[in-house]
């Protein structure tokens, strides 16, 4: 493909032929002259002009892709462990697109206001905004707002996090996509749409006139587009719903894996939880916001289950934001890669040593310490920069919370025969409305298996998957983590033909055949979600 002669202002060609994801699990080959970086067109003076000009630039990219028969996909931070967010064509770097707009009453749907909601809740945020910067904007200026949920760290972009279902453990709220209430998607060389739920409209005609897009109020299309991995077009902006700023109070407690804890892990029942919480924690159990359990599957005897609790409370105007960087030493960037190579080279011989090795590194990797005194922080400070580095693997399985300890037992039994080189985290989320959101259960329990990216870990993931299938467990996999075992049959089994059909039909409603091809990739083809794949 020839180098494009003249690019519109705000588009720069990226001269890259391949790209490796953050966690170094794969390298994607790219076509020449197919990757671009988008910035705000500098000749445009106002933020609104910059936003509208960028919509046109997205349309230019689609036209270019159709003309040159290449696949394109917008890239967030590139944190996904799977190839869900990359194409065999090019990458569109959106990370400089970070405008944010507040809403005034005259642009907000009357129904939204009549329900007692304030326009101050709503912000239109451009796709490349990082969670870090978004939190800072919300919390540190005069706005004093909080995001309703977050991932465990803050390096993702808002659209990247939403599109793969990034989550924390806000069991009454849900994942990142669950506080998004409007989507601005560029769907063709001459088309862009504003989508929101018919059942929960947030904007009115004045807003539609401002954004200049075709308006679609449709629950099925909106819910499908929320978690769509970049395959529904370029998601230029999202409307997020925030709430007045609050503080989280964090405790980290140690418990035994006994019947009482197991029962709590299967229900998240607050009354039961209150019974095991030490009396020095005075916070009201009804304010519990976050509940998670982290442990080393090779060392569970005694009080070795780290239970993380976060209570939601009022903001304190004397609160000081944390800016401290950790001092001293940490493990090197290449350490996990070196250990992985040794384990792979040694093969089965090293398997008996895995439990000891994991125990040795568990503390360093998870940094779990008992915290009996509450630590107060805003959402942005609590879920800060990631401390992971180097090559890592992670698979996250979502099940109905009622199946949590049943699935953990299967995992732990298998772990005795075939030790997993890593630790486990169990997190809880309110079920998502996103059609293909992997936290689809009313109360979803996400079991995360994080470890070294070696053959033993990959074998474990695959075999554990087969065990879950054999035991007829209803489960799903995180789209942005290890999920290479997915195929059309398995996705259909997880979400059902009806949900798959709704998602595919929604995609067809937004994109014509040429544009669908631009936003396709091998991943969605493999999962039976591309053209003609109606289940």
């Amino acid at each position, binding site marked *: 493909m020839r180098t494009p002669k003249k690019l519109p202002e705000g588009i720069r060609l990226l001269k*890259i032929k*391949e790209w490796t994801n953050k966690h170094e699990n794969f390298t994607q080959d790219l076509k020449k002259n197919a990757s671009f*970086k988008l910035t705000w067109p500098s000749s445009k003076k106002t933020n609104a002009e910059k936003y509208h000009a960028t919509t046109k630039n997205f349309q230019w990219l689609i036209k270019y892709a159709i003309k040159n028969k290449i696949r394109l996909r917008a890239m967030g931070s*590139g*944190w996904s462990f799977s190839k869900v967010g990359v194409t065999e064509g090019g990458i569109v770097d959106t990370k400089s697109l970070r405008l944010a707009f*507040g*809403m005034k009453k005259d642009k907000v749907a009357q129904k939204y206001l009549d329900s007692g909601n304030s326009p101050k809740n709503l912000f239109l945020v451009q796709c490349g905004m990082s969670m870090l910067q978004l939190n800072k904007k919300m919390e540190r200026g005069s706005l004093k707002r909080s995001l309703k949920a977050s991932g465990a760290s803050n390096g993702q972009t808002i659209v990247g996090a939403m599109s793969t279902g990034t989550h924390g453990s806000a069991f009454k709220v849900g994942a990142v996509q669950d506080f998004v209430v409007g989507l601005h998607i560029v769907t063709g060389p001459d088309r862009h749409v504003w989508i929101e739920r018919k059942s929960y409209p947030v904007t009115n005609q004045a807003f539609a006139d401002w954004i200049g897009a075709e308006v679609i109020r449709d629950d099925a299309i909106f819910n499908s587009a929320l978690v769509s991995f970049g395959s529904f077009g370029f998601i230029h902006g999202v409307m997020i719903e925030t709430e007045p700023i609050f503080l989280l109070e964090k405790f980290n407690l140690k418990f035994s894996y006994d019947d009482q804890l197991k029962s709590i892990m299967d229900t998240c029942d607050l009354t039961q939880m209150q019974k095991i919480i030490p009396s020095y924690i005075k916070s009201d159990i009804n304010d519990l916001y976050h509940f998670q359990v982290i442990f080393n599957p090779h060392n569970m005897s005694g009080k070795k289950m780290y239970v993380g609790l976060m209570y939601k409370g009022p903001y304190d105007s004397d609160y000081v934001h944390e800016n401290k960087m950790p001092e001293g030493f940490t493990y090197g960037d290449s350490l996990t890669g070196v250990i992985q190579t040794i384990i792979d080279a040694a093969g089965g011989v090293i398997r008996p040593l895995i439990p000891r090795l994991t125990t040795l590194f568990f503390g360093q990797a998870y940094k779990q310490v008992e915290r009996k005194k509450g630590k107060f922080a805003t959402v942005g400070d609590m879920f800060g920069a990631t401390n992971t580095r180097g090559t890592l693997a992670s698979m996250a399985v979502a099940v109905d919370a009622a199946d949590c300890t049943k699935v953990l037992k299967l995992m732990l039994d298998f772990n005795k025969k075939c030790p997993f080189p890593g630790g486990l985290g169990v997190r809880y989320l309110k079920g998502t409305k996103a059609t293909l959101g992997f936290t689809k259960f009313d109360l979803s329990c996400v079991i995360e298996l994080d470890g070294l990216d070696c053959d033993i870990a990959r074998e474990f993931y695959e075999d554990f998957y087969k065990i879950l299938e054999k035991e007829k467990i209803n489960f799903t996999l995180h789209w942005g983590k290890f999920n290479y075992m997915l195929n059309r049959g398995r996705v259909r089994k997880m979400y059902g033909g009806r949900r798959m059909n709704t998602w595919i039909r929604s995609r067809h409603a937004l994109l014509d055949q040429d544009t669908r091809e631009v936003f396709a990739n091998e991943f969605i083809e493999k999962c039976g979600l591309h053209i003609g794949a109606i289940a």
Partner: protein
Amino acid sequence: MKPLVKTISLLVFLLFLFQSCGVTRVVAEYDCDTFDNNPEYEETSVNYWWGLQQARDIDPKCCDDCAINKFEVVKQFDHFFISFITLGIVIPTRVKWCCRPPDAEIENID
């Protein structure tokens, strides 16, 4: 020491030697204006003759306010090895960086 243990120890040592690298990272903020591992933001710079001939300064291609948020120097075994066998005549160093992302005030839609 048994020969097998010796061989394994030697292999592990060599592996560490060839695979590992030393990284020094300066971070203003853990946020970049591009995706992670963008190959456009890394370069191997070579100095010659004990530093008497130096590579030209690198243009970081930071488009907005020309600020850098993160900078790292990566020293790999092959860098040490080349410097050693050439007695310092050739000194390669790999550098990676990322630019500070743009930051605009939130405005209300009018």
